[in-house]
C-alpha cells in the first residue's frame, strides 16, 4: 500500500493519541485526519481513511462518517493552494462579493474548481472568525485578511513564485 506515514509522522501520531485516556484512541481521529490530509497531498482518498482506521483500531465507517461531516476535510483532490473565501454576513457587508468575483476572474475558475495547472482551488466557505479583518480568506494554515483587488493580485503572484521556485 502506497499511503503510509513516515517515521516523523508516526511520532506525531503517537503524540496525538497519547493525549487521550487508554482505550479512547478514537478521540484522536480529527487531529489524525488533519495529519493524514497534510501528509497525503491535501485530501483524503478512501485509502487514506482506511489507513487511519487501521492505525486507530476503529472501523472504516467510523472514519468516513467523520470525514464527510467536517468541512475542512477534502474528499476530492485540490490544488496546491486552496483559497477558502469567507462569504458570511460580516464579510459580505464588507465587500466579499467583489473579492470573490475578482478571484474568479483572475484565476479563470468558478467556486469548487481547480485551475488547469493544479495550482489553485477556489472554495467559498462560511465564517472563519476574522470578521473584523474582512474581507478575508484562508490559504492552508494562514489567514489573508483585509483583502483588496491589489492584495489578491499580490497573493496570487506570491504563490505562483513559490511554485516556480520549487520546480
Amino acid at each position: 500500500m502506497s499511503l503510509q506515514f513516515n517515521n516523523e509522522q508516526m511520532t506525531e501520531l503517537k503524540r496525538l493519541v497519547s493525549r487521550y485516556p487508554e482505550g479512547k484512541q478514537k478521540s484522536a481521529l480529527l487531529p489524525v485526519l488533519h495529519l493524514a490530509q497534510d501528509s497525503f497531498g491535501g485530501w483524503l482518498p478512501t485509502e487514506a481513511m482506511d489507513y487511519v482506521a487501521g492505525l486507530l483500531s476503529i472501523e472504516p465507517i467510523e472514519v468516513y462518517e467523520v470525514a464527510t461531516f467536517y468541512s475542512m476535510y477534502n474528499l476530492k483532490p485540490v490544488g496546491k493552494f486552496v483559497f477558502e473565501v469567507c462569504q458570511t454576513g460580516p464579510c459580505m457587508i464588507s465587500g466579499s462579493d467583489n473579492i470573490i468575483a475578482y478571484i474568479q476572474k483572475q484565476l479563470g475558475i468558478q467556486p469548487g474548481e481547480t485551475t488547469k495547472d493544479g495550482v489553485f482551488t477556489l472554495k467559498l466557505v462560511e465564517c472563519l472568525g476574522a470578521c473584523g479583518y474582512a474581507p478575508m480568506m484562508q490559504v492552508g494554515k494562514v489567514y489573508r485578511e483585509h483583502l483588496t483587488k491589489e492584495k489578491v493580485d499580490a497573493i496570487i503572484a506570491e504563490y505562483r513564485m513559490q511554485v516556480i521556485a520549487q520546480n
Partner: protein
Amino acid sequence: MGVKLLLEKANVPGIRSYDVYRREGGYTTAEKALKEMSIEAIVEEVKKSGLRGRGGAGFPAGMKWSFIAKPEGLPRHLVCNADESEPGTFKDRYLMEFLPHLLIEGLLISSFALGSNDTYIYIRGEYAWVATILEEAIAEATKNGFLGKNILGTGFDCRIHVHRGAGAYICGEETALIESLEGKRGNPRIKPPFPAIQGVWMRPTVVNNVETLAAIVPIIKMGGEEYAKIGVGRSTGTKLISACGNINKPGVYEIDMTISVEDFIYSDEYCGGIANGKKLKACIPGGSSVPILPANLLLKTAKGETRYMNYESLSDGGFATGSMMGSGGFIVLDEDQCIVKNTLTLARFYRHESCGQCSPCREGTGWMEKIIQKIELGKGEISDIDLLWDIQRKIEGNTICPLGDAAAWPVAAAIRHFRDEFEWHITNRELSQTSNFGLQHYADPIHVPA
C-alpha cells in the same frame, strides 16, 4: 477609559511569551489559588463574582461549576470551548493569539478547582496557527513548573491538551463539542444527562468558553466581590466585544458594561463611528444568531431610554423590540446594506451548519435559505414572507440543541423589523436587482452626517 481586566497587558511587547507574562505579574494568581486557597474557596469567589458564561448563553459560571459530579474513582475533565464560530465573533481568537498565558493561567486555576488532571482546549480547526501558539505556551508553562506533575509542590497534576476541530459551527454547542472530542460527528446529545454528570467519555465534564476561563484570573486576583462591583446589575465584570462591519475601527474591545451602545459605536475609543461618512442602518449586537435591530431601536429602547452594552439592557423589550448580548459579536450595517441579502447569508450559514439530526432544523434551514434567495433574486411572492415566518416559528424550540433557535431568530427579527424591505424586494422585482431599499425610516435619528 473603561476598566481593563483581560486586555490590560495586551499591548506589552512580547506578552505572548512566558518570560514577559511572568515579569508582568503573570501566574502569581495561580500561585495564590493553588497554595493559599481551598477548592471550595475558589468556587465561592467565582460564584460571588457573578461571572456569566461568555460564549453566548450567559449562564452563571460558578453555578455551572457547582453542578459537577464527584463520584469516587472517576476522573473529571475541564474542556475549554475555543470553537469560536458564531459569525461576528473573533474575541477568543484575540485572547489566545495575544495572551495565551492568561488563558493557561485561568485553565490551571479552574482545573485545580474542578479536579481536572487532563484539560482540553477544543479549538476550531481553522485557527491552526493559534493552536500552535497555545502549544508553545503550554510547553513554556510546563517547563516552568506551572503544568505537569506536582505543580508548585501541591501534589496537583495538570496537563493541557490542544484538540483541533475540523470545521463545524455546531461543535460550539457543548455536547456536540464533547462528541467531536471523542472522535465522532458533532451531533448534540439529548440532555439530561448534562455534561457535569456524564460528559466526555461519560465522565463528569465542565465546558467553559475561553473568555470565561481567562476571567477566572482577575476574579481570583481581586476577589469575587470586587469583580462584581464592576459593571451593573447581573452584568458583572468586563466583556470582550468583537466589533465588525461598516465601522471605522473594527476590532476587539474590552468594556465594563456600563457604556451606552451609542458611545460604543460613535466614540473614538471604540468603533469610531460609521465608516465612509455613512449612516447607521442596523446592528446585530451579539453574534449572528441574535435579533437584528434597526438603528432607532438599537440606540434607545422602545421606552425611549438609553440602551447600554450589557445583558439586561440589550435584551430590554424582549424579542419584540430588543436583542441579546450573546457572544459579543457586534455587527454594524450601514445605509448601503440590504437586509434581505444579509439575512440570506445568515440563512445559508445555518443551513450549512445544521448537523442534520433534527428534521425541523435540517429541512427548515434549507427551506428558509431557498425562499430568501428567491426574494433576493426578485422572484418572490408576498405570501413568501408569511411562509418564512411560519417556518422559523416551527423550528424554534423544536430541536435538540439551540442551533434551531439560532437559525430561526435572525430570520424572524429581519421580518419583524424590516418587513417593508422584504415587500419592496418582491413588488419591485427589477429595481431590487439594481438598487437598494436604502434607509427609509430606519436611520439612526441622532447621528446624521452632513
